[in-house]
């Protein structure tokens, strides 16, 4: 029963969505199912938060390796939740001045806004920016023209790297029909044009093939799930 009911819900929902796509009068069913999904997704945030707390409180309680990080996470989570849900420091909205909590939780100058703008945003941006340093380090250590495939990859990378900057334009600007009329047949060799060609032809062809392959895989996996043949998404018994 514990597994049968979820299986039936998944199968019914899936088949309703498939049938609704091909039968226009049933479109409202698909809409209804999607709304239920949206509601469940909102509830999942609460479950996700509770699960996060459970795991990290256990880490702290067990004094597991790196428990200090868990403590930082719990404090940050609860602090942000408190100022956000409590709308601490938020003034009432202008259209509802009599209701203290009517202002938006992200109101400019509120503690939640300060946390978002001056803690969350810079920390996230910093983490993402670090990628540039690791890419540079990896480029120095890993990219070797050891064989034909690697040479092809490196050559393409150089063209695209240059073509995405002004260097691409500057380096091959001399391939200009104004300089010599014969160059009109070679403008495709300008780095910025080569970049466009690589992205629009080789990249598109490769990506289309991968996408079609993935789509076929999704169809077969989805059918297995809907028919109850693949039950791995329900977890272990």
């Amino acid at each position: 029963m514990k597994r049968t009911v979820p299986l039936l819900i998944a199968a019914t929902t899936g088949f309703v969505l498939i049938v609704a796509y091909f039968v226009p009068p049933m479109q409202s069913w698909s809409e209804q199912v999607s709304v239920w999904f949206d509601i469940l997704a909102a509830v999942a945030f609460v479950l996700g938060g509770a699960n996060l707390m459970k795991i990290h409180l256990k880490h702290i309680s067990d004094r597991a390796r790196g428990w200090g990080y868990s403590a930082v996470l719990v404090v940050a989570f609860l602090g942000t939740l408190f100022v956000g849900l409590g709308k601490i420091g938020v003034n009432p909205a202008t259209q509802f001045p009599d209701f203290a909590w009517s202002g938006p939780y992200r109101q400019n100058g509120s503690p939640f806004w300060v946390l978002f703008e001056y803690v969350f945003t810079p920390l996230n941006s910093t983490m993402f920016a670090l990628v540039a340093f690791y890419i540079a380090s990896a480029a120095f250590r890993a990219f070797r023209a050891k064989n034909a495939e690697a040479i092809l990859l490196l050559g393409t990378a150089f063209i695209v790297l240059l073509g995405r900057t002004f260097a691409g334009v500057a380096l091959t600007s001399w391939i200009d029909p104004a300089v010599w009329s014969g160059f009109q047949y070679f403008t495709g060799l300008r780095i910025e044009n080569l970049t466009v060609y690589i992205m629009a032809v080789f990249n598109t062809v490769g990506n289309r093939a991968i996408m079609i392959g993935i789509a076929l895989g999704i169809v077969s996996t989805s059918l297995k799930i809907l028919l109850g043949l693949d039950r791995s998404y329900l977890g272990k018994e």
Partner: protein
Amino acid sequence: MGAFLRQEWWIVAVFIASLLPLVHVLFTGRVSALRSLDRRWIFLLMFWAVLLPIYYVSSTGNVLPEVPGALAQATFDEIEKLSPGDPVLMAFDYDPPTTGEMAPMATAFVRHAAEKRLRMYFMTLWPPGAQMIDDTIARVLKPDFPQLVYGRDYVNLGYKSGQEAVIKVVVTNLRELYTTDVLGTGVQNIPMMDGITSIQQMKLIINVASGTPGTKEWVQYAVTPYPNLRIVAGVTGVSAPLYYPYIPRQLNGLLGAIKGAAEYEQLVLNRYGGPNPNPKYMEGLRRMAPQLVGHLLIIGLIIVANVLYFTDPARGRR
């Protein structure tokens, strides 16, 4: 450049001083030391490669010239051909980590739409996206377009959970999910929501996205089943190649990374810039200089590493 170097000699001095030990290794011929170079030297080189151009652009206001490509032009044309009062959906599906790439696009899109007097309906499928919308409105519409009125010219519908399921609903019934805007005002009390029942009534979807759900989901669940819908998108550099297969029938315009943002900014500036454009409308253009030096550094590092590899006498013995 010469005047800048003379005026800002101290930063040049710090730059040279910081790299003296590395230069010493190079000139004393200890090539083997380079083969096992401490990666902190590479981090330092990347630091300077990014910092110096940023400082130069900030100090002088100079930016590199930008030649808009076909995709940026197609994106610009899609918005340019709309008429004043046409409704457009501004779907901002990104968060702070990618603000460096996404914010210049979002700024340029909103500025272009405001110049065209389009009616803007903001929404997001990402929880932090609501703040990104607020920031863009505060950066562009409030200071530079005070004549545009909230609720009449633009509305922020905010975030809804459910990812692509949200798209599936709003594309046929917007009011099923969005009963209020972010301020809690009922949509029936928002003048610009009169007669708007679904996303299909939008003349254009403008999507700024840095992941999932994002452009791919808007293409798959909105534009493909309803081919009358049109969409242009601004996406991150790493994800841009994935969207090329949708061009041009399912995706009518694409801005990839900061380069795409810079090209689009250039087009908007050419049309609406005026003699002294505000630097906030040139953020993409300003970031092309650090991108240039950063890319050149990476190419240089790869070349040096390969030269060291192929001249390594121990290579054949490994």
